[in-house]
């Protein structure tokens, strides 16, 4: 996963090209939203009218879809994204304790980004790493059997990189 600092700022021409690449697919909206987020790190607001035009939808419909799905961000994330699992298997291995440690250390809440813009922590509900719980994806890389200490180390390492 490229870090957000290398992501381009909003570029309507790039957005239109991405939309045009997928517009002919049946049910194209989700694949396009994923592609836009991959490019810009979030789904920028000015993309909404472009999507509505290209797919013959109302802006309200496009907005409704973007806000329905937890994945699509309205604002850019930090340079590093930690997706921490909060589901039952990770709970059974003290995942919530590990998570609250990290959040306290970073001084943020779920979904928040550190003031220096380096780390965003997002909740996820199951990474399929339930037999190596608790688990997280840090910049897309999996980590299991986390402890407060190991998670802090992984995040610090990503931050320094």
């Amino acid at each position, binding site marked *: 996963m490229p870090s957000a600092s290398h992501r381009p700022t909003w570029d309507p021409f790039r957005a239109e090209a991405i939309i045009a690449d997928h517009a002919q697919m049946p049910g194209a909206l989700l694949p396009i939203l994923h592609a836009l987020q991959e490019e810009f790190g979030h789904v920028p607001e000015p993309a909404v009218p472009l999507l509505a035009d290209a797919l013959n939808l109302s802006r309200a419909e496009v907005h409704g879809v973007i806000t329905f799905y937890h994945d699509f961000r309205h604002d850019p994330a930090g340079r590093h994204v930690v997706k921490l*699992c909060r*589901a*039952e*298997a990770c709970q059974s291995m003290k995942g919530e304790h590990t998570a609250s440690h990290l959040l306290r250390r970073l001084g943020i809440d779920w979904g928040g980004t550190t003031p220096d813009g380096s780390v965003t922590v997002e909740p996820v509900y*199951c990474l*399929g*790493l339930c037999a*190596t719980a608790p*688990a997280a994806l840090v910049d897309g890389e999996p980590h299991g059997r986390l402890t407060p200490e190991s998670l802090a180390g992984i995040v610090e390492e990503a931050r320094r990189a």
Partner: protein
Amino acid sequence: MNTAPISPIRLFIPQDVAALAVGAERVVKAITSHAAADGTPITIIRTGSRGLFWLETLVEVETPAGRIAYGPVNPHDVPGLFNAGFLLGGAHPLRLGRMEDHPWLKGQTRLTFARCGIVDPLSLADYEATGGYKGLRHALAIGPAAIVETVTKSGLRGRGGAGFPTGVKWKTVADTKAPQKYIVCNADEGDSGTFADRMIMEGDPFGLIEGMSIAGIAVGATKGYIYSRSEYPHANRTMRAAIAEAYRTGRLGADILGSGVTFDLEFRVGAGAYVCGEETALLESLEGKRGQVRAKPPLPAHKGLFGQPTVINNLISLATVPVILAEGAAYYADFGMGRSRGTMPIQIAGNVRHGGLYETAFGVTLGEIVEGIGDGTATGRPVKAVQCGGPLGAYFPPMLFDTPYDYEAFAQRDGLIGHGGVVVFDDSVDMAAQARFAMEFCAIESCGKCTPCRIGSTRGAEVVEKIMAGREVDANLVLLEDLCATMKFGSLCALGGFTPYPVLSAVRHYPEDFRRRHAAAAE
């Protein structure tokens, strides 16, 4: 080394994401650099996982005596392994011998997961050498009606949780006339404690492609979609690569295997909405909409994706089809008990010593799974609760460990096997907090279409919160029961309809956890 072999020694190391999560990549690096320094030629083949996750990273070395396994290997073990001559199967404390002889695998019946962890997931040569495409060739020979009959006779039921007979679903779509039909694979494996779909996508993706192709032939559908999860980036990469390889070699597209039959397959990824695992919400999402549940009827088999007749099956159901076609309905149906035929990949997870994927015939008891196969908790404390079937499944206390793993037996005890997840908790768990979480999760993930789920879940979390605070506990427990009844009978789909299972099972089996503050206040 005086016995230097001429050809490189082959090693098999998983790149399943659970192996990566415990450091498989660092093990690969350590072995590669050590071998290079020694001047020993080796080839490392990356596989899926065999599903014994406490042994990851599992390293297997090909020797004349078979594939000798070592595990769990950490990077710091690597120099010692080389010193012990592990490349020739040498003795070492981590040596496990041949995995085929390992009791955890020997006790299993691997039909759906026969290849997982053994083959290179993207090698069609490996796939065909281990029986791949035998099912599809047989399917082409016998034709659509006989395929449907075979699947029906096998007794295969939907492995997503509902347990609906797969053959009946296929027959409905086969009998419906339409210009375009679809096969949709539900790989939106959102239940905590489950990873079977993920393991197939990472370890045996061609099995799913073959199963979907057979489904297409059976019902006359020329297009398929796999709907996976954004939480599975590694599985998605492997699955996409397998689809590209199948197209490249004429196993997808027009004229599959020279049969004249067309089957196209597209891969899509969800966006973090649990409810999209519900089949009609999944179809809405595939159409590019909010993942809101549809009222049934019409059934997807009549009016599914883009309004066309659609077979929508769980990934495990579809990945099990090839072996049924290859070996016959009776072969599969011979396993199991009662109306639960064949095998189930049970996923043992959470606070458990031996967690992983255990495929076995229906009928094994829950106690055998947790205490025997799983070997108790990872923390070494007593088991307090086991949640079966994901976030919508009931919590079972050890008192009910005699329950056989079977759709009907679980239903009789107000539980469900769902997609096969078994999550173990030790005695430190607060069951009132788990009940509150079940309601909170439903509130977060509710699609919002029906009121019992949308509002009931939020009110439910509030009521449990009050109980936990010791406020009017008796009255609030009555209210909670009532609210759960409304959700159970009034919700459109299983999200609102089944959230009462974990909640009420927690109340029923662990009343003391709901009366802690109450009891403390009375003293």
